[in-house]
């Protein structure tokens, strides 16, 4: 598991790692600062802040971001002064330090190649920030602290967009003015409605309970029906008694017996009446409860919806800036901000909308001169609209620019040899527009920074397909272009076909399957050891679902149940054990700790409450393609991979700084050691007890359990006491070194040693070079 995570980290640059670390530590710093603001006595927070600032300083030094080193250092000085009671923390210091946190965030965002330019450009701001935190300034008593502009706004460029939207030449007009992002969501919400933040966990639990209640109501329904049966047999009993009475009327009966019989008759009649009453009550309750639980369930599902406005905050500013940089004039008009959109769809819409708007400004909107010549207003208009229509969500992006020239598409299609000249001439408008969504397809002659790489529209297409929607283009030459996205209202509920594989239920989203078909066994043909069948004149290869999913299969003697998947280019028939029927399911996300499970996208509950898994159709098709083309992927982590691991020496790196951890990991990994990482002493202590390592490399200053304590614990443990341990720390004083070695460390290095061979040499000294 950790191996996968490491691999994904591997592709990142050190600067990216630094950015991630800044994110984590900034959160710590901000939280502590806010805690201190509320309660200046919360001095325990100072230690956490110190550690965060210190880690950031070290990490910044590693990636060579001196500005960040300075900021972190000045914050450290300030914290130390507070710890030593040389400084009393006031709101102004907290403001200044929060500004410092923001500044660190911005420094981390600067791309490597722009670093020099950025530093030069922002020198004044840096100076004023450092001055605001320098001890002289902080010690000076500020007579009127409230009149001071918070330092984060001290530099005009940092003011939020709303304050300086008077940029020349551009009128930014949206139906919502552009306030600072943080206020946006609350302001744009339907008038006066209060917004609560609820965690996804809470919501999921609520959904679970509401689902249970609904299941309870279903049980009640069946129970009521059973009671009805009981009533019927009671009626039968009464009829029997009536028959008995009739036949007994023919014989002479004593008065006593007749009385008893009548008594019995009355008794049963009473019973019947009260049974009818109770049943009526039960039915009433059942109806109330069913409607209540269904409504409860629906309400909880609706909680997943958010206003459209929440997902598009960044676009007005983006459109404005982009148009400006291209020397164009454009405004973005948004309608339907209060339209409710599933929060998952809203999140996934961001990238496609970004592409569409960029395309519209870059390709669509003409330059002011061209627009004037065409007799259009100089200012181009982009429209972004959202509305519900016929149970679907419609998102429409329109521009009044030059439109798409059909002839240009024809030429591009022919030039790219996607079709012949004759066929291109015959193609309809809709068919030609289809080509725009192909990966790598572009009409632009030159690739610009904004768009034209030809990656835009296939991103849109992919996202729309993934959620089971569709996208259409309309364009009029010279008049503009309109993209229309039709998406499902929610991702929480999907229609599925439920099948049985390995005696367990699995669901296929209906939108993602081609056909489901039952065939007698003799319709299956075999060719070169591969089975296939014919569907609409097409040969479709068969694969057993249990084989793809690595499950034990149950053979059936009946007809073969086949789910046909894939598109025109490649279709596969997946053999399942049984069709269980069609069902609407509420999608439950899988526990994040499981990571991505191959071929599975989510889970759900059957109407009877038993769990089932929802198939990730795209993943499954890829997997089948691999199986069919013979490149059977050997299960990860077994056999082959395991053997090479055995010969490699295993090192555990324990450090709370992501940057340092990754640096050490890469350094050792490149020398052939197998490296695992742990994020603090406690994590490290757990790791050494549960797996075997040849060496532990640990930092000293860490939360939960520090490096010295970790070494001490290792030395005390009978099974681990001979495990070599190396300390790598920023602390380079003699007494620190002494403390580490006394605790039982075999080596003590300072963190400067990454830059030369010291660390790897020391590792080789302790456990030898690795064999691979």
């Amino acid at each position, binding site marked *: *598991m*950790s191996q*996968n995570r490491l691999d994904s980290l591997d592709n990142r640059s050190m600067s990216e790692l630094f950015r991630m670390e800044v994110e984590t530590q900034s959160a710590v710093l901000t939280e502590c600062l806010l805690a201190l603001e509320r309660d200046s006595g919360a001095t325990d927070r100072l230690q956490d802040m110190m550690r965060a600032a210190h880690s950031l300083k070290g990490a910044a030094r590693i990636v060579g971001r001196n500005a960040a080193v300075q900021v972190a250092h000045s914050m450290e000085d300030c914290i130390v002064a507070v710890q030593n009671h040389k400084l009393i923390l006031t709101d102004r210091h907290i403001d200044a330090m929060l500004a410092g946190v923001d500044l660190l965030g911005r420094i981390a965002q600067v791309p490597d190649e722009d670093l020099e330019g950025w530093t030069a450009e922002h020198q004044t701001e840096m100076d004023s920030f450092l001055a605001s935190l320098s001890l002289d300034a902080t010690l000076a008593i500020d007579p009127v602290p409230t009149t001071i502009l918070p330092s984060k706004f001290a530099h005009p460029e940092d003011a939020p967009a709303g304050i300086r939207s008077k940029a020349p030449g551009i009128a930014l007009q949206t139906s919502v003015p552009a306030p600072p992002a943080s206020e946006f969501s609350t302001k744009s919400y339907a008038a006066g409605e209060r917004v609560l933040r609820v965690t996804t*966990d809470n919501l*999921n*639990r609520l*959904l*679970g*309970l*509401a*689902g*249970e209640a609904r*299941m309870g109501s279903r049980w009640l329904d069946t129970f009521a029906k059973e009671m009805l049966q009981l009533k019927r047999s009671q009626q039968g009993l009464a009829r029997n008694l009536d028959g008995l009475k009739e036949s007994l009327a023919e014989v002479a009966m004593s008065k006593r017996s007749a009385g008893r019989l009548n008594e019995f008759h009355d008794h049963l009649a009473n019973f019947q009446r009260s049974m009818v009453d109770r049943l009526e009550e039960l039915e009433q309750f059942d109806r109330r409860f069913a409607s209540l639980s269904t409504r409860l369930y629906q309400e909880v599902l609706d909680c997943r919806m958010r206003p459209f406005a929440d997902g598009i905050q960044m676009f007005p500013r983006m459109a404005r800036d982009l148009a400006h940089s291209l020397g164009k004039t454009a405004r973005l008009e948004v309608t339907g901000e209060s339209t409710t959109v599933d929060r998952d769809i809203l999140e996934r819409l961001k990238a496609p909308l970004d592409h569409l708007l960029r395309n519209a400004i870059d390709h669509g909107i003409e330059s002011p001169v061209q627009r004037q010549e065409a007799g259009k207003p100089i200012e181009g208009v982009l429209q972004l609209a959202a509305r519900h229509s016929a149970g679907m969500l419609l998102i429409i992006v329109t521009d009044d620019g030059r439109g798409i020239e059909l002839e240009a598409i024809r030429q591009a299609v022919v030039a790219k040899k996607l079709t012949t000249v004759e066929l291109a001439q015959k193609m309809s408008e809709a068919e030609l527009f289809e080509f725009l969504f192909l990966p790598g397809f572009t009409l632009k002659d030159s690739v610009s920074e904004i768009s034209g790489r030809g990656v835009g529209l296939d991103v849109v297409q992919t996202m729309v397909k993934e959620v089971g929607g569709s996208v259409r283009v309309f364009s009029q030459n010279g008049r503009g272009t309109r993209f229309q996205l039709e998406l499902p209202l929610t991702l929480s509920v999907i229609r599925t076909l439920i099948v049985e594989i*390995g005696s*367990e*239920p699995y669901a296929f989203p209906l939108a993602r399957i081609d056909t489901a078909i039952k065939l007698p066994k003799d319709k299956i043909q075999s060719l070169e050891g591969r089975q296939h069948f014919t569907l609409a004149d097409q040969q479709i290869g068969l694969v057993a679902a249990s084989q793809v*999913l*690595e*499950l034990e299969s149950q053979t059936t003697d009946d007809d073969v149940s086949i789910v046909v998947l894939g598109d025109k280019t490649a279709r596969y028939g997946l053999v399942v054990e049984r069709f269980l029927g069609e069902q609407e399911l509420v999608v*439950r996300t*899988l*526990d994040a*700790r*499981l*990571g991505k*499970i*191959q*071929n*599975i996208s989510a*889970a759900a*509950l059957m109407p009877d*409450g*038993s*769990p*089932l*898994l929802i198939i990730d159709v795209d993943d499954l098709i890829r997997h089948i393609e691999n199986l069919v083309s013979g490149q059977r992927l050997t*299960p990860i982590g077994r056999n082959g991979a395991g053997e090479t691991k055995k010969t490699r020496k295993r090192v555990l790196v324990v450090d709370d700084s992501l940057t340092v951890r990754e640096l050490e990991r890469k350094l050792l990994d490149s020398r052939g050691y197998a490296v695992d990482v742990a994020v603090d002493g*406690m*994590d490290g202590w*757990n*790791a050494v*007890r*549960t797996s075997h390592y040849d060496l532990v490399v640990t930092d000293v200053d860490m939360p939960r359990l520090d490096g010295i304590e970790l070494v001490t614990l290792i030395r005390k443990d009978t099974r681990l006491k001979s495990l070599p341990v190396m300390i790598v720390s920023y602390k380079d004083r003699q007494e620190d070194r002494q403390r580490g070695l006394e605790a039982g460390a075999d080596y003590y290095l300072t963190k400067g040693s990454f830059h030369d061979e010291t660390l790897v040499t020391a590792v080789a000294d302790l456990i030898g070079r690795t064999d691979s």
Partner: protein
Amino acid sequence: MRNTVTQIHWSAAARLLDRDMPDGYLDERTDSASAHKEVVEPGTKSSVIFRLGVEWLALSTSMFQEVAEWSRVHKLPHHVGGILRGLVNVRGELLVCVSLDVLLGLEKSPEANRPNEQTARERLLVCNREGSRLAFFVSEVYGVHHFHPRDLKDVPATLAKAAATYISGVLHWKNKAVGCLDDELLFYALNKGLA
């Protein structure tokens, strides 16, 4: 007006308090007051004792969210046979179900050989440690037991190596040796074994 109402309440309360004691009430209270009280020592720990196959184990009570009835587990494809057993529905929520016997390297309990069949004593234990939840099946649950850490004995060398790693001490209870699980390490390993 108000005085009359107060008067009524007052006299009703007096009647309630002055009522005759039920038969045997006095004896019962006397027995209870004179009974030997178990003194709870400071530092006493509370654990849930349960059986997994032939082994008796204990895990800190604070880890438990609930003891649930048997429920069907759905296997996860490509993960068959490991620590991860699958998903299980507990009160409408899908929880990750793990196999403690696999982690501890214990002999398969007879129940584990019939994965989707219920036995009368089998229970699903739902744990919640710092928000991360896991469920696992056990053969039987005894209940909550209190003990003092000084009564813990060392782990015998005869115990399987995998199990010994996760057991911090052995408790003698009803002539049985109960392995007390180290919850920090146990959850670390279980969470790590999920993906």
